[in-house]
């Protein structure tokens, strides 16, 4: 059965495509994303408190390597098959090598309603995956030159809203532990799916605004925006199996790999690689990949994880 939060996304998309007057004020969009980011961080942090940090190191390193790898793989495809300008190819590759927090949240909700459990420290991997793709993207666009202002890039990357809230939530959850957080659960746990529904309503509206630029940029981008997540999900599934993750954990890792950033990376690229046309990456990530993952991808990656597990066993 279809999860109602997906229906909110469809409502937003339809309203947007029909040019309805419906708009969410920007302040509401920010409120909703702040609560989601904190909630995801907090949940992961509580879990981190439960396990020895070192036991997670292999997963952390693998995931960082995956972030580097996927970006490096996407770049030549975009540059030579897609014939994008160097800076555009680098920027799009960075978007797809990084992750989308909204997609992650939908995957969590999906697994919840399917009653599939997963390793709760996934938010840590989410944070880690945001970063490497940005660095690779900048180097691909600029080369490694003396001129690159790494200090201001690091500032842009690590002090952006998304990372600060996720990381902050992780640390708060880690320090406070499950008991400490019980008093703020009504906001950050009980309301999570309701607030996610509002977020998806807005995402639907935003997605609809990307349709115009999508048409302008031609079919290659559309194909890439579906093929790349499918490929990345395979990589993610394989790594999940390799790391010995549960079915749920493998599904999440595949979803992370398949998702494309539309918050942290656009902001960083706009400042660090301004020559890249931002509408290209956003049309792909928001106009195609986000809805694809949310509507089709996540259940698919789940099936893939089940299959991988069975295959591995038998």
């Amino acid at each position, binding site marked *: 059965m279809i999860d109602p939060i997906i229906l909110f996304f469809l409502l937003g998309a339809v309203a947007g495509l029909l040019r309805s007057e419906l708009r969410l004020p*920007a302040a509401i*969009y920010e409120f909703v994303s702040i609560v989601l980011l904190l909630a995801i961080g907090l949940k992961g942090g509580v879990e981190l408190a439960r396990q020895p940090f070192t036991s997670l190191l292999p997963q952390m390193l693998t995931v960082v390597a995956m972030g580097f790898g996927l970006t490096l793989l996407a770049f030549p495809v975009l540059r030579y098959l897609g014939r994008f300008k160097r800076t555009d190819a680098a920027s799009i590759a960075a978007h797809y090598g990084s992750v989308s927090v909204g997609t992650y949240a939908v995957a969590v909700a999906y697994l919840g309603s399917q009653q599939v459990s997963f390793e709760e420290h996934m938010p840590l991997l989410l944070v880690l995956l945001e970063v490497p793709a940005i660095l690779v993207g900048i180097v691909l666009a600029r080369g490694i030159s003396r001129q690159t202002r790494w200090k201001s890039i690091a500032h842009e990357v690590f002090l952006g809203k998304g990372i600060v809230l996720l990381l902050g939530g992780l640390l708060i959850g880690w320090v406070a532990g499950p008991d400490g957080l019980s008093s703020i659960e009504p906001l950050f746990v009980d309301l999570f799916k309701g607030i996610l529904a509002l977020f998806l309503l807005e995402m639907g509206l935003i997605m609809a*605004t990307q349709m115009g630029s999508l048409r302008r940029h031609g079919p290659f981008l559309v194909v890439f925006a579906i093929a790349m997540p499918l490929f990345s999900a395979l990589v993610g599934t394989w790594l999940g199996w390799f790391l010995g993750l549960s079915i749920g954990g493998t599904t999440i890792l595949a979803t992370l790999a398949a998702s494309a950033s539309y*918050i942290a990376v656009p902001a960083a690229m*706009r400042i660090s690689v*301004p020559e890249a046309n*931002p509408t290209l990456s956003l049309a792909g990530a928001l106009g195609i990949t986000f809805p694809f993952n949310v509507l089709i991808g996540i259940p698919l990656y789940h099936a893939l994880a089940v299959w991988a597990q069975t295959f591995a066993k038998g």
Partner: protein
Amino acid sequence: MHSHTRKLLTVITEAALESTLVRDLDQLHAHGYTITDARGKGSRGTRNAGWEANGNIRIEVVCDTVTAVNITAYFQEHYYDDYAMILFVSDIEVLRPEKF
């Protein structure tokens, strides 16, 4: 009451540039600035401010002619090619010329 002529420089550009431009303005000797949130349309498409990456800001700087020329030149060189940005200048009268 005695009034003096100064320039009012208005820049309309992407919200993402705000902190960068504010730093630039300080270095280019603007004595102040005022920013409002905006949305709009131009040669780089519609920017309807529905979400953060898609909003504009409108920066106003009251300054003397030399500063206006400097800021204009600097912004033109550094941002015109890569960012949605327009810039225009008008004449205004101010009361306390030493401020600007």
